[in-house]
Protein backbone atom coordinates (compact mmCIF):
# COMPACT_ATOMS: atom_id res chain seq x y z
CA UNK A 1 0.00 0.00 0.00
CA UNK A 2 1.47 3.31 -1.00
CA UNK A 3 0.42 6.83 -0.19
CA UNK A 4 -0.35 7.24 -3.86
CA UNK A 5 -4.03 7.82 -3.29
CA UNK A 6 -3.20 10.83 -1.20
CA UNK A 7 -1.38 12.65 -3.97
CA UNK A 8 -3.26 15.17 -6.05
CA UNK A 9 -3.33 14.79 -9.81
CA UNK A 10 -1.09 17.65 -11.03
CA UNK A 11 1.50 16.62 -8.48
CA UNK A 12 1.35 13.06 -9.65
CA UNK A 13 1.90 14.10 -13.25
CA UNK A 14 4.86 16.23 -12.21
CA UNK A 15 6.21 13.32 -10.19
CA UNK A 16 5.82 10.93 -13.10
CA UNK A 17 7.48 13.30 -15.53
CA UNK A 18 10.45 13.77 -13.24
CA UNK A 19 10.67 10.01 -12.60
CA UNK A 20 10.93 9.40 -16.33
CA UNK A 21 13.45 12.22 -16.83
CA UNK A 22 15.60 10.90 -14.00
CA UNK A 23 15.39 7.40 -15.48
CA UNK A 24 16.72 8.80 -18.76
CA UNK A 25 19.65 10.48 -17.00
CA UNK A 26 20.41 7.33 -14.97
CA UNK A 27 20.29 5.09 -18.04
CA UNK A 28 22.25 7.49 -20.25
CA UNK A 29 25.77 6.24 -19.39
CA UNK A 30 24.75 2.70 -20.33
CA UNK A 31 23.15 3.96 -23.53
CA UNK A 32 26.29 5.90 -24.38
CA UNK A 33 28.46 2.85 -23.72
CA UNK A 34 26.48 0.60 -26.07
CA UNK A 35 26.10 3.36 -28.68
CA UNK A 36 29.82 4.11 -28.69
CA UNK A 37 30.62 0.42 -28.96
CA UNK A 38 28.62 0.31 -32.21
CA UNK A 39 29.99 3.53 -33.69
CA UNK A 40 32.55 3.25 -36.48
CA UNK A 41 36.09 4.22 -35.50
CA UNK A 42 36.06 7.79 -36.83
CA UNK A 43 32.76 8.57 -35.17
CA UNK A 44 33.69 7.38 -31.65
CA UNK A 45 36.58 9.76 -31.54
CA UNK A 46 34.82 12.75 -32.99
CA UNK A 47 34.91 16.06 -31.17
CA UNK A 48 31.25 16.58 -32.09
CA UNK A 49 29.75 13.39 -30.62
CA UNK A 50 26.22 12.60 -31.82
CA UNK A 51 23.68 10.79 -29.63
CA UNK A 52 22.99 8.30 -32.45
CA UNK A 53 24.95 6.68 -35.21
CA UNK A 54 24.24 6.60 -38.91
CA UNK A 55 26.56 3.71 -39.66
CA UNK A 56 26.51 1.11 -36.88
CA UNK A 57 29.56 -1.08 -37.10
CA UNK A 58 30.90 -4.17 -35.36
CA UNK A 59 34.52 -3.13 -35.82
CA UNK A 60 35.14 -2.39 -32.16
CA UNK A 61 33.68 -5.73 -31.10
CA UNK A 62 35.78 -7.45 -33.73
CA UNK A 63 38.88 -5.77 -32.31
CA UNK A 64 37.91 -6.89 -28.81
CA UNK A 65 37.37 -10.51 -29.76
CA UNK A 66 40.46 -10.61 -31.91
CA UNK A 67 42.45 -9.55 -28.91
CA UNK A 68 44.40 -12.53 -27.74
CA UNK A 69 42.50 -14.67 -25.26
CA UNK A 70 39.57 -12.31 -24.77
CA UNK A 71 37.19 -15.27 -25.01
CA UNK A 72 39.32 -17.09 -22.51
CA UNK A 73 39.15 -14.14 -20.07
CA UNK A 74 35.40 -14.12 -20.46
CA UNK A 75 35.20 -17.84 -19.61
CA UNK A 76 37.57 -17.33 -16.66
CA UNK A 77 35.41 -14.53 -15.26
CA UNK A 78 32.27 -16.61 -15.71
CA UNK A 79 33.83 -19.68 -14.11
CA UNK A 80 35.14 -17.75 -11.11
CA UNK A 81 31.82 -15.99 -10.55
CA UNK A 82 29.75 -19.17 -10.89
CA UNK A 83 31.91 -21.18 -8.50
CA UNK A 84 31.78 -18.39 -5.92
CA UNK A 85 28.01 -17.98 -6.29
CA UNK A 86 27.18 -21.69 -6.00
CA UNK A 87 29.63 -22.60 -3.26
CA UNK A 88 28.94 -19.54 -1.13
CA UNK A 89 25.18 -20.05 -1.49
CA UNK A 90 25.42 -23.65 -0.27
CA UNK A 91 27.88 -22.95 2.53
CA UNK A 92 25.94 -19.86 3.64
CA UNK A 93 22.68 -21.80 3.59
CA UNK A 94 24.08 -24.39 6.00
CA UNK A 95 25.58 -21.74 8.26
CA UNK A 96 22.44 -19.59 8.26
CA UNK A 97 20.41 -22.66 9.19
CA UNK A 98 22.76 -23.41 12.07
CA UNK A 99 22.55 -19.92 13.57
CA UNK A 100 18.79 -19.54 13.19
CA UNK A 101 17.41 -22.98 14.02
CA UNK A 102 19.69 -24.15 16.78
CA UNK A 103 20.70 -22.72 20.09
CA UNK A 104 24.25 -23.40 21.10
CA UNK A 105 27.11 -21.81 22.94
CA UNK A 106 28.87 -18.95 21.14
CA UNK A 107 25.92 -18.50 18.75
CA UNK A 108 25.65 -14.78 19.46
CA UNK A 109 29.42 -14.39 19.38
CA UNK A 110 29.50 -16.02 15.95
CA UNK A 111 26.75 -13.75 14.67
CA UNK A 112 28.63 -10.69 15.82
CA UNK A 113 31.76 -12.05 14.18
CA UNK A 114 29.92 -12.50 10.88
CA UNK A 115 28.73 -8.92 11.13
CA UNK A 116 32.21 -7.63 11.90
CA UNK A 117 33.68 -9.77 9.10
CA UNK A 118 31.62 -7.88 6.56
CA UNK A 119 33.38 -4.67 7.42
CA UNK A 120 36.90 -5.96 6.88
CA UNK A 121 38.36 -3.89 4.05
CA UNK A 122 39.01 -6.51 1.42
CA UNK A 123 41.51 -4.29 -0.33
CA UNK A 124 43.69 -4.06 2.76
CA UNK A 125 43.96 -7.86 2.81
CA UNK A 126 45.49 -7.95 -0.65
CA UNK A 127 48.97 -7.90 0.87
CA UNK A 128 48.65 -10.90 3.23
CA UNK A 129 46.52 -12.78 0.71
CA UNK A 130 49.24 -12.28 -1.87
CA UNK A 131 51.75 -14.01 0.39
CA UNK A 132 49.25 -16.70 1.35
CA UNK A 133 48.51 -17.49 -2.29
CA UNK A 134 52.20 -17.50 -3.08
CA UNK A 135 52.97 -19.91 -0.23
CA UNK A 136 50.27 -22.30 -1.41
CA UNK A 137 51.30 -22.01 -5.04
CA UNK A 138 48.01 -20.42 -5.99
CA UNK A 139 49.37 -17.29 -7.64
CA UNK A 140 48.44 -17.11 -11.32
CA UNK A 141 45.57 -19.57 -10.86
CA UNK A 142 41.84 -18.98 -10.82
CA UNK A 143 41.91 -20.37 -7.29
CA UNK A 144 43.58 -17.18 -6.10
CA UNK A 145 40.48 -15.29 -7.28
CA UNK A 146 37.87 -17.83 -6.15
CA UNK A 147 39.08 -18.46 -2.61
CA UNK A 148 39.22 -14.85 -1.33
CA UNK A 149 35.89 -14.00 -2.93
CA UNK A 150 34.30 -17.00 -1.24
CA UNK A 151 35.50 -15.70 2.10
CA UNK A 152 34.33 -12.16 1.41
CA UNK A 153 30.87 -13.05 0.18
CA UNK A 154 30.11 -15.53 2.96
CA UNK A 155 29.51 -13.27 5.99
CA UNK A 156 27.12 -11.12 4.01
CA UNK A 157 25.35 -14.13 2.50
CA UNK A 158 24.86 -15.66 5.94
CA UNK A 159 23.38 -12.42 7.32
CA UNK A 160 21.04 -12.03 4.42
CA UNK A 161 19.87 -15.66 4.40
CA UNK A 162 19.27 -15.59 8.13
CA UNK A 163 16.09 -13.60 7.59
CA UNK A 164 14.80 -16.07 5.03
CA UNK A 165 15.52 -19.14 7.15
CA UNK A 166 13.95 -17.45 10.17
CA UNK A 167 10.76 -16.86 8.20
CA UNK A 168 10.16 -20.60 7.74
CA UNK A 169 7.85 -21.61 10.60
CA UNK A 170 9.26 -23.92 13.24
CA UNK A 171 6.04 -25.90 13.12
CA UNK A 172 6.90 -27.03 9.62
CA UNK A 173 10.13 -28.51 10.85
CA UNK A 174 8.42 -30.34 13.71
CA UNK A 175 5.77 -31.68 11.33
CA UNK A 176 8.48 -32.98 9.03
CA UNK A 177 10.19 -34.83 11.86
CA UNK A 178 6.88 -36.24 13.08
CA UNK A 179 6.34 -37.58 9.57
CA UNK A 180 9.63 -39.35 9.92
CA UNK A 181 11.82 -37.11 7.79
CA UNK A 182 15.49 -37.12 8.66
CA UNK A 183 17.33 -33.89 9.39
CA UNK A 184 19.12 -34.03 6.03
CA UNK A 185 15.85 -34.62 4.22
CA UNK A 186 14.24 -31.63 5.93
CA UNK A 187 17.25 -29.49 5.13
CA UNK A 188 17.45 -30.21 1.41
CA UNK A 189 13.91 -31.13 0.42
CA UNK A 190 11.89 -28.71 2.53
CA UNK A 191 14.02 -25.84 3.82
CA UNK A 192 16.21 -25.37 0.75
CA UNK A 193 13.35 -24.87 -1.75
CA UNK A 194 11.62 -22.53 0.69
CA UNK A 195 14.58 -20.19 1.06
CA UNK A 196 15.52 -20.41 -2.61
CA UNK A 197 14.26 -16.87 -3.38
CA UNK A 198 16.57 -15.63 -0.64
CA UNK A 199 19.45 -17.56 -2.17
CA UNK A 200 18.78 -15.84 -5.48
CA UNK A 201 18.87 -12.38 -3.90
CA UNK A 202 22.06 -13.29 -2.03
CA UNK A 203 23.66 -14.65 -5.20
CA UNK A 204 23.16 -11.35 -6.98
CA UNK A 205 25.47 -9.70 -4.48
CA UNK A 206 28.17 -12.36 -4.54
CA UNK A 207 28.01 -12.51 -8.34
CA UNK A 208 28.45 -8.76 -8.68
CA UNK A 209 31.31 -8.47 -6.23
CA UNK A 210 33.16 -11.35 -7.87
CA UNK A 211 32.50 -10.28 -11.46
CA UNK A 212 33.60 -6.76 -10.46
CA UNK A 213 36.89 -7.90 -9.06
CA UNK A 214 39.73 -5.86 -10.43
CA UNK A 215 42.21 -5.66 -7.59
CA UNK A 216 42.81 -9.38 -7.01
CA UNK A 217 43.04 -10.13 -10.71
CA UNK A 218 45.55 -7.31 -10.99
CA UNK A 219 47.58 -8.40 -7.96
CA UNK A 220 47.46 -12.22 -8.06
CA UNK A 221 47.54 -12.99 -11.78
CA UNK A 222 50.88 -11.52 -12.64
CA UNK A 223 52.79 -13.77 -14.98
CA UNK A 224 50.35 -16.27 -16.48
CA UNK A 225 47.92 -13.98 -18.24
CA UNK A 226 45.87 -16.86 -19.63
CA UNK A 227 44.42 -17.08 -16.11
CA UNK A 228 43.28 -13.48 -16.11
CA UNK A 229 39.77 -12.09 -16.09
CA UNK A 230 37.77 -9.51 -18.02
CA UNK A 231 38.88 -6.30 -16.27
CA UNK A 232 42.41 -6.99 -17.46
CA UNK A 233 41.20 -7.44 -21.03
CA UNK A 234 39.58 -4.03 -20.76
CA UNK A 235 42.77 -2.32 -19.67
CA UNK A 236 44.55 -3.39 -22.86
CA UNK A 237 42.66 -0.68 -24.73
CA UNK A 238 44.03 2.05 -22.49
CA UNK A 239 47.14 3.15 -24.27
CA UNK A 240 49.69 5.68 -23.09
CA UNK A 241 49.39 7.88 -26.17
CA UNK A 242 45.80 7.44 -27.30
CA UNK A 243 43.04 5.40 -25.65
CA UNK A 244 41.08 3.15 -28.01
CA UNK A 245 37.67 4.32 -26.81
CA UNK A 246 35.78 2.18 -29.31
CA UNK A 247 37.51 -0.92 -27.97
CA UNK A 248 37.05 0.17 -24.34
CA UNK A 249 33.33 0.73 -24.85
CA UNK A 250 32.88 -2.56 -26.73
CA UNK A 251 34.77 -4.51 -24.05
CA UNK A 252 32.78 -2.70 -21.34
CA UNK A 253 29.56 -3.63 -23.10
CA UNK A 254 30.55 -7.29 -23.33
CA UNK A 255 31.46 -7.22 -19.65
CA UNK A 256 28.26 -5.51 -18.54
CA UNK A 257 25.67 -7.42 -20.58
CA UNK A 258 25.85 -10.71 -18.60
CA UNK A 259 25.34 -8.84 -15.34
CA UNK A 260 22.43 -6.85 -16.79
CA UNK A 261 20.81 -10.04 -18.07
CA UNK A 262 21.30 -11.68 -14.69
CA UNK A 263 19.77 -8.65 -12.96
CA UNK A 264 16.76 -8.50 -15.24
CA UNK A 265 16.18 -12.23 -14.76
CA UNK A 266 16.22 -12.03 -10.97
CA UNK A 267 14.85 -8.48 -10.74
CA UNK A 268 11.53 -9.45 -9.15
CA UNK A 269 13.16 -11.85 -6.75
CA UNK A 270 15.73 -9.23 -5.80
CA UNK A 271 13.26 -6.45 -5.06
CA UNK A 272 10.80 -8.75 -3.28
CA UNK A 273 13.76 -10.40 -1.57
CA UNK A 274 14.87 -7.06 -0.14
CA UNK A 275 11.27 -6.31 0.83
CA UNK A 276 10.86 -9.74 2.39
CA UNK A 277 14.10 -9.40 4.28
CA UNK A 278 12.94 -6.06 5.63
CA UNK A 279 9.71 -7.47 6.98
CA UNK A 280 11.82 -10.20 8.49
Amino acid at each position, binding site marked *: MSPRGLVRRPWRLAAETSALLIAVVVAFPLYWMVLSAFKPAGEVESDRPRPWTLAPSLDSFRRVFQQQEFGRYFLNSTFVALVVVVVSALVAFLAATAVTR*FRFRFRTTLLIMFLVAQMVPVEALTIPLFFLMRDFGQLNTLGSLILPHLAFSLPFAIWMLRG*FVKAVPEALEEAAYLDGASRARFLWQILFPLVFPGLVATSVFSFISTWNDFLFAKSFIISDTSQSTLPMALLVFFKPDENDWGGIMAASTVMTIPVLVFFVLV*QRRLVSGLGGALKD
Partner: protein
Amino acid sequence: MAQDVTLGPPAPGTTTPASTRPPRAHRRRGGLTPWLYLAPALVILAGLLVYPVYQLGLISFLEYTQAQVSGGEPATFQGLGNYTALFADEQFWQVLLATVLFAGACVVCTLAVGCSLAVLLTRVRALPRLVLMLAGLGAWATPAITGSTVWMFLFDPDFGPVNRVLGLGDFSWTYGRYSAFALVLLEVVWCSFPFVMVTVYAGIRAVPGEVLEAAALDGASQWRTWRSVLAPMLRPILVVVTIQSVIWDFKVFTQIYVMTGGGGIAGQNLVLNVYAYQKAFASSQYSLGSAIGVVMLLILLTVTLVHLRLLRREGEEL
Protein backbone atom coordinates in the same frame (compact mmCIF):
# COMPACT_ATOMS: atom_id res chain seq x y z
CA MET B 1 25.65 -4.75 0.54
CA ALA B 2 22.13 -5.49 1.48
CA GLN B 3 22.83 -8.14 4.00
CA ASP B 4 21.94 -5.93 6.87
CA VAL B 5 18.43 -5.29 5.75
CA THR B 6 17.59 -8.55 7.38
CA LEU B 7 18.32 -6.79 10.61
CA GLY B 8 15.56 -4.27 10.27
CA PRO B 9 13.60 -4.94 13.39
CA PRO B 10 9.86 -4.56 12.97
CA ALA B 11 9.22 -0.86 12.89
CA PRO B 12 7.34 0.34 15.94
CA GLY B 13 3.71 0.40 15.07
CA THR B 14 3.83 -2.40 12.55
CA THR B 15 2.27 -5.47 13.96
CA THR B 16 4.44 -8.50 14.38
CA PRO B 17 2.35 -11.52 15.17
CA ALA B 18 4.00 -13.43 17.96
CA SER B 19 3.90 -16.57 15.86
CA THR B 20 6.46 -15.32 13.35
CA ARG B 21 9.04 -15.14 16.05
CA PRO B 22 9.90 -18.66 17.10
CA PRO B 23 9.81 -19.01 20.84
CA ARG B 24 13.25 -19.68 22.17
CA ALA B 25 12.27 -22.70 24.19
CA HIS B 26 11.35 -24.59 21.05
CA ARG B 27 14.74 -24.41 19.45
CA ARG B 28 16.81 -27.53 19.61
CA ARG B 29 20.25 -27.65 21.02
CA GLY B 30 21.22 -30.23 18.43
CA GLY B 31 24.54 -31.18 19.96
CA LEU B 32 27.15 -31.23 17.25
CA THR B 33 24.77 -30.67 14.33
CA PRO B 34 24.97 -26.85 14.24
CA TRP B 35 28.76 -27.04 14.27
CA LEU B 36 28.64 -29.52 11.42
CA TYR B 37 26.55 -27.06 9.44
CA LEU B 38 28.90 -24.25 10.32
CA ALA B 39 32.12 -26.12 9.62
CA PRO B 40 32.59 -25.27 5.92
CA ALA B 41 31.89 -21.57 6.53
CA LEU B 42 34.20 -21.42 9.53
CA VAL B 43 37.04 -23.17 7.73
CA ILE B 44 36.83 -20.76 4.78
CA LEU B 45 36.56 -17.69 6.99
CA ALA B 46 39.36 -18.76 9.32
CA GLY B 47 41.75 -19.49 6.48
CA LEU B 48 40.98 -16.63 4.17
CA LEU B 49 39.78 -13.84 6.40
CA VAL B 50 40.88 -14.24 10.00
CA TYR B 51 44.37 -15.50 9.21
CA PRO B 52 45.05 -12.76 6.61
CA VAL B 53 43.87 -10.13 9.10
CA TYR B 54 46.35 -11.54 11.61
CA GLN B 55 49.07 -11.53 8.94
CA LEU B 56 48.24 -7.95 8.02
CA GLY B 57 48.75 -6.89 11.61
CA LEU B 58 51.95 -8.89 11.85
CA ILE B 59 53.52 -7.49 8.67
CA SER B 60 52.73 -3.99 9.85
CA PHE B 61 55.14 -4.55 12.74
CA LEU B 62 57.93 -6.04 10.62
CA GLU B 63 60.37 -4.70 8.15
CA TYR B 64 59.05 -6.27 4.99
CA THR B 65 60.32 -5.08 1.65
CA GLN B 66 61.48 -6.73 -1.56
CA ALA B 67 64.51 -8.26 0.17
CA GLN B 68 62.37 -10.04 2.77
CA VAL B 69 59.75 -11.08 0.27
CA SER B 70 62.25 -12.84 -1.92
CA GLY B 71 63.72 -14.52 1.13
CA GLY B 72 67.07 -12.79 0.88
CA GLU B 73 66.90 -11.28 4.33
CA PRO B 74 65.00 -12.28 7.44
CA ALA B 75 62.08 -10.09 8.43
CA THR B 76 62.98 -8.05 11.45
CA PHE B 77 60.64 -6.81 14.13
CA GLN B 78 60.18 -3.07 13.99
CA GLY B 79 57.79 -2.47 16.86
CA LEU B 80 55.79 0.61 16.07
CA GLY B 81 58.44 1.80 13.64
CA ASN B 82 56.26 1.53 10.56
CA TYR B 83 53.46 3.42 12.25
CA THR B 84 55.82 6.14 13.43
CA ALA B 85 57.10 6.51 9.88
CA LEU B 86 53.58 6.55 8.53
CA PHE B 87 52.26 9.13 10.99
CA ALA B 88 55.28 11.32 10.37
CA ASP B 89 54.48 11.34 6.67
CA GLU B 90 52.52 14.43 5.76
CA GLN B 91 51.03 12.70 2.74
CA PHE B 92 49.40 10.06 4.94
CA TRP B 93 47.40 12.70 6.82
CA GLN B 94 46.41 14.37 3.58
CA VAL B 95 45.21 11.07 2.14
CA LEU B 96 43.35 10.23 5.36
CA LEU B 97 41.58 13.58 5.33
CA ALA B 98 40.77 13.25 1.62
CA THR B 99 39.40 9.74 2.20
CA VAL B 100 37.13 10.85 5.03
CA LEU B 101 35.84 13.91 3.16
CA PHE B 102 35.40 12.05 -0.12
CA ALA B 103 33.62 9.08 1.49
CA GLY B 104 31.48 11.47 3.53
CA ALA B 105 30.42 13.40 0.45
CA CYS B 106 29.63 10.14 -1.38
CA VAL B 107 27.51 8.90 1.54
CA VAL B 108 25.55 12.14 1.85
CA CYS B 109 24.86 12.37 -1.88
CA THR B 110 24.00 8.67 -2.23
CA LEU B 111 21.55 8.81 0.67
CA ALA B 112 19.96 12.06 -0.48
CA VAL B 113 19.45 10.82 -4.04
CA GLY B 114 18.41 7.31 -2.97
CA CYS B 115 15.88 8.44 -0.37
CA SER B 116 14.31 11.16 -2.54
CA LEU B 117 13.90 8.75 -5.42
CA ALA B 118 12.44 6.10 -3.10
CA VAL B 119 9.78 8.62 -2.05
CA LEU B 120 9.26 9.57 -5.69
CA LEU B 121 8.71 5.89 -6.54
CA THR B 122 5.78 5.76 -4.13
CA ARG B 123 4.13 8.74 -5.83
CA VAL B 124 3.96 7.41 -9.36
CA ARG B 125 1.99 4.77 -11.22
CA ALA B 126 3.36 1.36 -12.14
CA LEU B 127 4.90 2.20 -15.51
CA PRO B 128 7.10 5.17 -14.58
CA ARG B 129 8.03 3.26 -11.43
CA LEU B 130 9.15 0.25 -13.45
CA VAL B 131 11.14 2.45 -15.84
CA LEU B 132 13.00 4.23 -13.03
CA MET B 133 13.52 0.97 -11.17
CA LEU B 134 15.00 -0.71 -14.25
CA ALA B 135 17.28 2.26 -14.96
CA GLY B 136 18.47 2.07 -11.36
CA LEU B 137 19.04 -1.68 -11.53
CA GLY B 138 21.06 -1.11 -14.70
CA ALA B 139 23.36 1.34 -12.95
CA TRP B 140 23.59 -0.96 -9.94
CA ALA B 141 24.47 -3.97 -12.08
CA THR B 142 27.22 -2.18 -13.96
CA PRO B 143 30.63 -3.49 -12.87
CA ALA B 144 32.73 -0.83 -11.15
CA ILE B 145 35.40 -0.96 -13.80
CA THR B 146 33.06 -0.51 -16.75
CA GLY B 147 31.13 2.18 -14.88
CA SER B 148 34.45 3.97 -14.44
CA THR B 149 35.43 3.72 -18.09
CA VAL B 150 32.02 4.90 -19.30
CA TRP B 151 31.98 7.92 -16.99
CA MET B 152 35.49 8.81 -18.07
CA PHE B 153 34.36 8.67 -21.66
CA LEU B 154 31.25 10.74 -20.98
CA PHE B 155 33.45 13.43 -19.44
CA ASP B 156 36.33 13.08 -21.88
CA PRO B 157 37.65 16.54 -22.84
CA ASP B 158 37.91 15.62 -26.53
CA PHE B 159 35.24 13.05 -27.28
CA GLY B 160 32.74 13.21 -24.40
CA PRO B 161 29.24 14.62 -24.77
CA VAL B 162 29.12 16.27 -21.34
CA ASN B 163 31.59 19.04 -22.09
CA ARG B 164 29.75 19.76 -25.36
CA VAL B 165 26.38 20.01 -23.66
CA LEU B 166 27.75 22.13 -20.82
CA GLY B 167 29.86 24.23 -23.20
CA LEU B 168 33.05 23.50 -21.29
CA GLY B 169 35.27 23.17 -24.34
CA ASP B 170 38.19 20.85 -23.69
CA PHE B 171 38.12 21.18 -19.90
CA SER B 172 39.85 18.14 -18.40
CA TRP B 173 37.97 16.75 -15.42
CA THR B 174 40.79 14.49 -14.28
CA TYR B 175 43.44 17.21 -14.30
CA GLY B 176 42.34 19.20 -11.27
CA ARG B 177 42.12 17.63 -7.84
CA TYR B 178 38.56 18.66 -7.01
CA SER B 179 37.07 18.09 -10.44
CA ALA B 180 38.61 14.60 -10.51
CA PHE B 181 37.16 13.79 -7.09
CA ALA B 182 33.82 15.24 -8.26
CA LEU B 183 33.81 13.00 -11.33
CA VAL B 184 34.52 9.88 -9.27
CA LEU B 185 31.86 10.97 -6.78
CA LEU B 186 29.28 11.20 -9.57
CA GLU B 187 30.11 7.68 -10.71
CA VAL B 188 30.01 6.30 -7.17
CA VAL B 189 26.65 7.91 -6.47
CA TRP B 190 25.31 6.69 -9.82
CA CYS B 191 26.11 3.06 -9.09
CA SER B 192 25.23 3.04 -5.39
CA PHE B 193 22.04 5.09 -5.05
CA PRO B 194 19.89 2.26 -6.52
CA PHE B 195 20.60 0.04 -3.52
CA VAL B 196 19.41 2.79 -1.17
CA MET B 197 16.43 3.58 -3.41
CA VAL B 198 15.22 -0.02 -3.66
CA THR B 199 15.78 -0.77 0.02
CA VAL B 200 14.08 2.38 1.32
CA TYR B 201 11.26 1.92 -1.19
CA ALA B 202 10.73 -1.63 0.08
CA GLY B 203 10.72 -0.18 3.60
CA ILE B 204 8.08 2.44 2.77
CA ARG B 205 5.91 -0.19 1.12
CA ALA B 206 6.07 -2.22 4.31
CA VAL B 207 4.45 0.65 6.27
CA PRO B 208 0.77 -0.22 6.61
CA GLY B 209 -1.49 2.00 4.51
CA GLU B 210 -3.90 2.58 7.40
CA VAL B 211 -1.24 4.47 9.30
CA LEU B 212 -0.81 6.89 6.41
CA GLU B 213 -4.55 7.22 5.90
CA ALA B 214 -4.97 8.00 9.58
CA ALA B 215 -2.33 10.69 9.28
CA ALA B 216 -4.10 12.15 6.24
CA LEU B 217 -7.46 12.10 8.05
CA ASP B 218 -5.87 14.00 10.92
CA GLY B 219 -4.90 16.63 8.36
CA ALA B 220 -1.18 16.01 8.42
CA SER B 221 0.76 17.63 5.58
CA GLN B 222 3.03 15.56 3.33
CA TRP B 223 6.09 16.88 5.13
CA ARG B 224 4.56 16.27 8.54
CA THR B 225 3.60 12.72 7.54
CA TRP B 226 7.14 12.08 6.42
CA ARG B 227 8.74 13.60 9.50
CA SER B 228 6.44 12.26 12.20
CA VAL B 229 5.18 8.98 10.75
CA LEU B 230 7.42 7.59 8.04
CA ALA B 231 10.84 8.70 9.22
CA PRO B 232 10.61 7.08 12.68
CA MET B 233 9.31 3.85 11.15
CA LEU B 234 12.06 3.82 8.57
CA ARG B 235 14.78 4.68 11.04
CA PRO B 236 16.19 1.15 11.35
CA ILE B 237 16.40 0.83 7.55
CA LEU B 238 17.98 4.26 7.25
CA VAL B 239 20.59 3.28 9.84
CA VAL B 240 21.41 0.15 7.87
CA VAL B 241 21.75 1.86 4.48
CA THR B 242 23.80 4.66 6.03
CA ILE B 243 26.28 2.32 7.69
CA GLN B 244 26.46 0.23 4.55
CA SER B 245 27.19 3.29 2.42
CA VAL B 246 29.87 4.47 4.84
CA ILE B 247 31.58 1.10 4.59
CA TRP B 248 31.37 0.91 0.81
CA ASP B 249 32.40 4.46 0.09
CA PHE B 250 35.30 4.30 2.50
CA LYS B 251 36.65 1.36 0.52
CA VAL B 252 36.30 2.72 -3.01
CA PHE B 253 39.21 1.41 -5.00
CA THR B 254 38.46 0.56 -8.62
CA GLN B 255 36.82 3.87 -9.48
CA ILE B 256 39.67 5.99 -8.15
CA TYR B 257 42.29 3.69 -9.57
CA VAL B 258 40.83 3.57 -13.06
CA MET B 259 39.39 7.07 -13.40
CA THR B 260 42.34 9.00 -12.01
CA GLY B 261 45.01 6.66 -13.36
CA GLY B 262 46.13 5.20 -10.04
CA GLY B 263 45.52 8.16 -7.75
CA GLY B 264 45.66 11.29 -9.85
CA ILE B 265 48.46 13.57 -10.90
CA ALA B 266 51.16 13.50 -8.20
CA GLY B 267 48.82 11.42 -6.03
CA GLN B 268 46.34 14.24 -5.60
CA ASN B 269 43.37 11.86 -5.72
CA LEU B 270 44.69 9.10 -3.49
CA VAL B 271 42.39 7.50 -0.95
CA LEU B 272 43.63 5.13 1.76
CA ASN B 273 42.96 1.96 -0.21
CA VAL B 274 44.77 3.07 -3.33
CA TYR B 275 47.54 4.58 -1.22
CA ALA B 276 48.09 1.25 0.57
CA TYR B 277 48.10 -0.58 -2.75
CA GLN B 278 50.63 1.82 -4.27
CA LYS B 279 52.90 1.60 -1.24
CA ALA B 280 52.81 -2.20 -1.18
CA PHE B 281 52.76 -3.25 -4.81
CA ALA B 282 54.23 -0.31 -6.67
CA SER B 283 57.05 0.53 -4.26
CA SER B 284 57.37 -2.83 -2.45
CA GLN B 285 56.89 -1.24 0.97
CA TYR B 286 54.67 -4.04 2.21
CA SER B 287 54.99 -3.06 5.86
CA LEU B 288 53.83 0.49 5.25
CA GLY B 289 51.01 -0.77 3.05
CA SER B 290 49.96 -3.14 5.82
CA ALA B 291 50.10 -0.38 8.42
CA ILE B 292 47.74 1.70 6.26
CA GLY B 293 45.51 -1.38 5.97
CA VAL B 294 45.45 -1.69 9.76
CA VAL B 295 44.46 1.97 10.11
CA MET B 296 41.56 1.36 7.69
CA LEU B 297 40.56 -1.77 9.52
CA LEU B 298 40.43 0.13 12.81
CA ILE B 299 38.33 2.93 11.32
CA LEU B 300 35.83 0.49 9.83
CA LEU B 301 35.78 -1.52 13.03
CA THR B 302 34.74 1.61 14.89
CA VAL B 303 31.91 2.13 12.41
CA THR B 304 30.85 -1.48 12.97
CA LEU B 305 30.83 -1.09 16.74
CA VAL B 306 28.63 2.00 16.41
CA HIS B 307 26.38 -0.06 14.15
CA LEU B 308 26.17 -2.87 16.71
CA ARG B 309 25.36 -0.43 19.49
CA LEU B 310 22.57 1.08 17.41
CA LEU B 311 21.19 -2.39 16.67
CA ARG B 312 21.30 -3.32 20.32
CA ARG B 313 19.48 -0.15 21.25
CA GLU B 314 16.79 -1.01 18.71
CA GLY B 315 16.35 -4.23 20.64
CA GLU B 316 17.23 -6.49 17.76
CA GLU B 317 17.49 -10.10 18.80
CA LEU B 318 20.63 -11.55 17.33
